[in-house]
């Protein structure tokens, strides 16, 4: 998401396509051959293909397990001075020390023989492979490079400490259904989070209660011009947000004077994060447990949406003419898109958290047929062609020298599947939009047609009017630089769909859509896991099991995303980032694990032992490895 990339970035790399393609075609399987050259901590990192659990820090020797929710403070990072680059858990300080001691001893005594667990990767610099991927990460993949030191701390199976459930786990049974302790206040607040705020009456009599409503929101997004003019607020009208804007504006100008751009501060139980982008200031105010970096990436997405509506040069022109320019006018109609993005973040978006995309799982051969059909029917002015099923990518066709930026795709998916406008409108759509990750200076034109899977060759006039994203919407997106290209792309669509129909792909896609995401136990029979996120760094894609039944409710899902968010922050918080970490709460135990190849986050009930969790994590990695060419789009169709 970190949307600062631009089109140039893809240029110079293009020539390497051919070469990289080979490596890329098989990025993970070559375990023995690679890896070692990147393992900076030699000696400790003999590569082995044996199945071994991921490194385990020792289990906490604490009995206060009821102290469940770890601190949600946003400034946890500096609190552990000695933990640089080491695994962390919610441990007492003593335990941590102990652990460090352990690992050191370990690595000295048995270092070279200790089996290591990470899959080889084709290229040390992950971003080298980017241009063969259909979606490209802008961020240099978080600098994960090859630092393997936190692989230290591997526990031999025999060293596993007593399983957690010995320690006073009566609570567990009562909470068997949920992985989180009940928190009715949060549930209540979350349910109301998306309700509209009442207008203030003309006589102002309800001002107090409206203000209260506003304050009770868990999350606010404000966008204002550097002159202090309100441009967008997720909740409440101008009158209502004036106070906050005034405060934020004052702070910004104060810090700007000090040549130190304000980043974030805490007021009460709210975390404020401010991002200044040219003529705009974007503010996130959150009472959810999100790190500054995560909030910033959300603000980035909102900023990209604004650029997508206006393009950067035209926005700058507007403000150059008049600093007090009212941007709401040219943005008219964009509020719904901004709010759809904002609400996605508030509900919790794995895609944004991971800056990655999800794909529809298809057999490799099936996907190839779809890819080839896209290539065969490609019309002259086509830049990108995508088939998308309920927010999951089915297939992409693209020019060799251009990748698709995940942030751009997120904007498109948000427009099509979260905001109701296009979906509910019926018919076909022709949408001018700027894809800022591709090129923030100009517009492209996107042809959109939703398919009726039962009668795919007929234009869908009447889409199911429910906006609840019933999940089986398949859209054909054809993007061109030609603003007059509608009918050309429409003809392509007709041809594409009729061929997909003939070669059976429509049925295949329909089947995969109906199948939905697997459950954890489909992935690994008997797995104790309740949920996981697996991100393939090279492909900038992720996969996960279904949220239901354990995280079906909005608040449950939000708690899960909170947990992932904390784990993610600990993997990525610089300079104290780690490659593996655990979190243990009364009712759940979770693991985050990063290698140059992937990031894995998973969670299981609190009764699960660390060994079992580690084993389950490994099984997921094995599964993805086996299914890689099904769950991810590798390469895509390139012309």
């Amino acid at each position: 998401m970190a949307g600062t990339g631009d089109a140039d970035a893809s240029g110079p790399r293009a020539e390497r396509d051919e070469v990289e393609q080979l490596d890329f075609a098989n990025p993970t399987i070559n375990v023995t051959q690679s890896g070692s050259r990147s393992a900076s901590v030699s000696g400790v990192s003999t590569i082995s293909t044996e199945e071994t659990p991921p490194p385990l820090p020792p289990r906490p020797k604490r009995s206060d397990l009821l102290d469940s929710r770890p601190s949600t403070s946003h400034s946890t990072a500096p609190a552990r001075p000695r933990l640089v680059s080491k695994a962390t858990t919610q441990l007492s300080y003593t335990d941590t020390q102990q652990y460090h001691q352990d690992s050191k001893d370990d690595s000295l005594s048995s270092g070279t023989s200790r089996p290591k667990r990470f899959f080889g990767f084709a290229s040390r610099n992950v971003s080298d492979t980017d241009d063969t991927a259909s979606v490209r990460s802008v961020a240099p993949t978080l600098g994960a490079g090859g630092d393997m030191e936190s692989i230290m701390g591997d526990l031999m199976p025999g060293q596993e400490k007593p399983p957690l459930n010995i320690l006073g786990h009566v609570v567990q049974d009562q909470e068997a259904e949920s992985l989180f302790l009940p928190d009715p206040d949060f549930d209540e607040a979350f349910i109301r989070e998306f309700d509209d705020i009442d207008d203030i009456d003309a006589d102002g009599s309800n001002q107090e209660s409206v203000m209260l409503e506003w304050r009770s929101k868990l999350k606010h997004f404000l966008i204002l011009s550097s002159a202090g003019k309100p441009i967008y607020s997720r909740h409440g009208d101008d009158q209502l947000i004036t106070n906050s804007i005034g405060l934020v504006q004052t702070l910004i100008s104060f810090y700007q004077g000090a040549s130190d751009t304000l980043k974030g501060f805490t007021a009460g139980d709210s975390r404020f994060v401010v991002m200044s982008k040219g003529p705009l200031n974007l503010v996130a105010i959150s009472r959810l447990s999100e790190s500054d970096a995560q909030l910033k990436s959300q603000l980035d997405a909102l900023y990209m949406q604004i650029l997508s509506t206006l393009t950067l040069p035209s926005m700058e022109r507007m403000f150059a003419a008049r600093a007090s320019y009212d941007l709401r006018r040219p943005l008219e109609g964009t509020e719904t898109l901004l709010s759809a993005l904002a609400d996605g973040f508030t509900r919790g978006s794995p895609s944004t958290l991971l800056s990655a995309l999800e794909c529809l799982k298809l057999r490799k051969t099936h996907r190839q047929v779809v890819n080839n059909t896209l290539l065969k029917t490609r019309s002259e002015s086509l830049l990108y062609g995508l088939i998308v099923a309920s927010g999951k990518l089915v297939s992409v066709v693209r020019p060799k020298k251009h990748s698709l930026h995940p942030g751009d795709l997120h904007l498109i998916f948000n427009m099509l599947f979260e905001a109701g406008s296009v979906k509910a409108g019926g018919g076909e759509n022709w949408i001018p939009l700027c894809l800022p990750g591709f090129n923030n200076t100009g517009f492209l034109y996107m042809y959109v047609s939703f398919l009726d899977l039962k009668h795919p060759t007929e234009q869908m006039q009447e889409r199911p009017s429910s906006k609840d994203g019933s999940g089986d919407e398949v859209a054909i997106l054809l993007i061109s630089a030609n603003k007059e290209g509608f009918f050309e792309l429409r003809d392509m669509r007709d041809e594409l769909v009729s061929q997909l129909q003939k070669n059976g792909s429509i049925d295949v896609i329909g089947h995969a859509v109906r199948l939905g995401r697997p459950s954890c136990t489909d992935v690994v029979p008997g797995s104790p896991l309740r949920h996981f996120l697996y991100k393939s760094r090279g492909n900038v894609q992720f996969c996960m099991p279904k949220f239901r039944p354990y995280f079906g409710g909005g608040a449950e899902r939000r708690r899960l995303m909170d947990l992932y968010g904390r784990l993610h922050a600990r993997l990525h918080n610089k300079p104290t980032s780690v490659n593996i970490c655990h979190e243990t709460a009364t009712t759940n135990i979770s693991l985050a694990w990063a290698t140059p190849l992937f990031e894995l986050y998973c969670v299981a009930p609190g009764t699960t032992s660390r060994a079992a969790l580690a084993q389950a994590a490994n099984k997921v990695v094995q599964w993805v490895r086996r299914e890689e060419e099904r769950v991810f789009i590798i390469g895509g169709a390139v012309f």
Partner: protein
Amino acid sequence: MADSAPAQPKPSSSVKLVLLGEAAVGKSSLVMRFVNNDFQENKEPTIGAAFLTQKCNLPTRTIKFEIWDTAGQERFASLAPMYYRNAQAALVVYDITKPSSLTKAQHWVAELQRQASPGIVIALVGNKSDLAAVNGGASGGDSSDDVDAAPAAEGETNEEEDGADARRVPTKTAKAYADEENLLFFETSAKTGTNVAEVFTAIANAIPETSLKGPRGVGGQTNLGRQEERVNLVGGRTEGPKEGCAC
């Protein structure tokens, strides 16, 4: 709507129609009523433009409307010519509760008269007639000068609320303007369906035989009927400037 299948094939022709008008006057709602016979409160704004088709059966022939529903937001104004350039008919919509939307509609009419195909059939449509008190419009509306109050009233006019009259554009005013400019004129409600089919039928009837083309005059396949040998004023989609993309 107009769709009972003809007993025997009637001549069929396609009519390209564009909807223009300020955002939120109800263009998309009118189309949705015409095409799906459906209505949505609090519809989200259109992004870009939507393309829909709908057949309309007349006694002597079938008209297939190819409809461009534009977004009406200012930033898309420069794209409008692309949609009306080849259009044979235009529906210029305003909101009877919002005088400024009539002004905007008049601008569109002027632009069409200057720039669109000479024979274009234009209908001026005052939408949201359900928000007017019964007879409120015909009598001219006593609040006709209350221009300033109108924008504020918009959105707050709770439908049917004690029958309050939200009309701010008298029928007379708009009708007089339409007559002067030789436009078809209707007041409609996409919400109740009043007059919606009538607008499209009137347009279908007003299209001169001579400007009718076979189905899909633009864009390729011919799926129905014979191609009428008529003047094709337009060169199809390949015409027009190709410049203008910054990529």
